[in-house]
């Protein structure tokens, strides 16, 4: 057993479907517009007035028995001691086996140069008041006007063309004792994060109260993103 097993319990009853988690993830991890490390399934069912609406946040499940890890030919996709499923961009050969192997569709591949087209507006929205995008890039010395340099502490800040990318549970934040950006951004406290191996941790306590579910249990991947209180 891993020393730690970082886990995310998502309280579907508390989730309001605001997608703040998705936006926080993009900002924190410099995720290209067309990718969604933090994503969601929307399900509508029935006919008015007998209807049901579900908003199910999704992300990398950091599976204990991760098929992406088993299928990676260079061990670029690997498990850490904390139970995270991580991708070493240096080792990735861009074969996309991980993407094919993932039953949840949460791995993305940079088929083209990421963040293209780059925002290159030459004119300020309010001349003399706001800065142009080029000016922001020059002043901040970053490749993107919305770049978060903290992301580059553990993996490439922007993943290059030809490699895959996915949720890391904000490992760079975990290293500093912070919680993932999506957890911090959730206004409803629907994301409960912590070490599942610690009996006093918030996710363990939540699971003691409510029976969890996982996506696609029939795949046998043992996801570490668990859902409680579906309704």
């Amino acid at each position, binding site marked *: 057993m891993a020393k730690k097993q970082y886990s995310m319990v998502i309280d579907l009853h508390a989730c309001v479907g605001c997608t703040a988690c998705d936006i926080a993830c993009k900002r924190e991890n410099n995720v290209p517009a067309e990718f969604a490390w933090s994503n969601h399934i929307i399900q509508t*069912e029935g006919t008015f007035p007998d209807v049901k609406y579900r908003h199910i946040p999704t992300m990398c499940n950091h599976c204990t028995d991760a098929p992406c890890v*088993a299928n990676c030919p260079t061990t670029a996709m690997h498990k850490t001691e904390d139970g995270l499923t991580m991708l070493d961009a240096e080792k990735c050969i861009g074969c996309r086996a991980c993407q094919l192997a993932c039953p949840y569709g949460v791995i993305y591949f940079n088929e083209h140069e990421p963040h293209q087209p780059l925002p290159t507006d030459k004119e300020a929205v309010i001349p003399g008041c706001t800065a142009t995008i080029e000016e922001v890039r020059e002043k901040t010395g970053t490749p993107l006007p919305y770049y978060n340099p903290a992301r580059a502490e553990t993996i490439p800040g922007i993943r290059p063309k030809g490699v895959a990318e996915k949720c890391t549970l904000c490992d760079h934040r975990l290293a500093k004792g912070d919680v993932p950006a999506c957890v911090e951004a959730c206004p409803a406290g629907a994301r409960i994060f912590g070490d599942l191996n610690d009996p006093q941790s918030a996710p363990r306590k939540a699971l003691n109260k409510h029976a969890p579910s996982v996506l696609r249990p029939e795949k046998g991947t043992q996801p570490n993103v668990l*859902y409680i209180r579906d309704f």
Partner: protein
Amino acid sequence: MNTEIIYEIQSGPYWDWRVALDLFLGGAGIGALLFAVLLDERFKGKYQRICRTAAWLAPLLVGAGLLLVMLKMGRPFHLFLAYTNFNPTSPLWWGGVFQPLLLVGAFVYALMWRGDQAQDSARTWLGRLLAPLAVIVGAYHGMLLSVIVARPLWNTGPTVVAAMLGFVSTGIAVVMLVHLIRMKMAGRLADEAHVAQFLDNMRVVRNTLFVVLLLQLGTFFLWWLSLNFGALQDQQALAAANEICGPMFWWLGIVVGLVLPIALGAFAVWRGEASYRRLQIGVIGLTSFMILLGGFFFRLAVLVGGQQDLPVNITF
């Protein structure tokens, strides 16, 4: 009850025709290499010409397949990392390590077929070393798709068996076809005695091919049964693949690649050989071509069909 599910993920197919061609060419190359090694081993250099054809086809086909699959990779020159990072649970790791080795070995083996030396112990020994390597690379090609549990169309036992049988049939077919072309170019097809000897010599190969094609057809039927009457996801995967690749799979993969060659083979046997040598040669050429055509389109259909987005089953 009306249910609509929206889940936007990066759309596929993630593996395209280049991977299908790698599976096809690599498989045929492995089949050709095993063909040369077994024929040389069994008949001790009696069939030098056809062994030479098979031996040269092997590195060309395996190399072309490897090149194509590398073109599909995001960072192909990092493939050497497979040698420094050990992950035997990944069929791609096996392919990355052993396919380049097989390519080099097959090329050396082909070079050893130069000249008219009927028997060469070094060549025979190299063939014996390469045969298990070829089986490993063949197993990699066969298991590449079937181990992916997320893809119900691929994740079945018959997928592996069908792929392995496919190596044998396409390997034999490509050798037969190329060898016939070589005979035609050298004018040996006009020589009745030579044709009669060729037909006689190749009887065991043709019979093997006939049996392999029948086994392949049976395997496909089992595969279809397991999906059509399997779990909901299996049925959805089959329906999704049928929708986009059905005609390619059934008409080109099954009818052209299997049913017609079996029918033509049976017809040729029924007509007898002695008085219909031209017909026999024509049948061998035509069936070989059809097996190759069907073999490629079967792989393409399965590869693309297996990557179709399936309905999200929320199985809470």
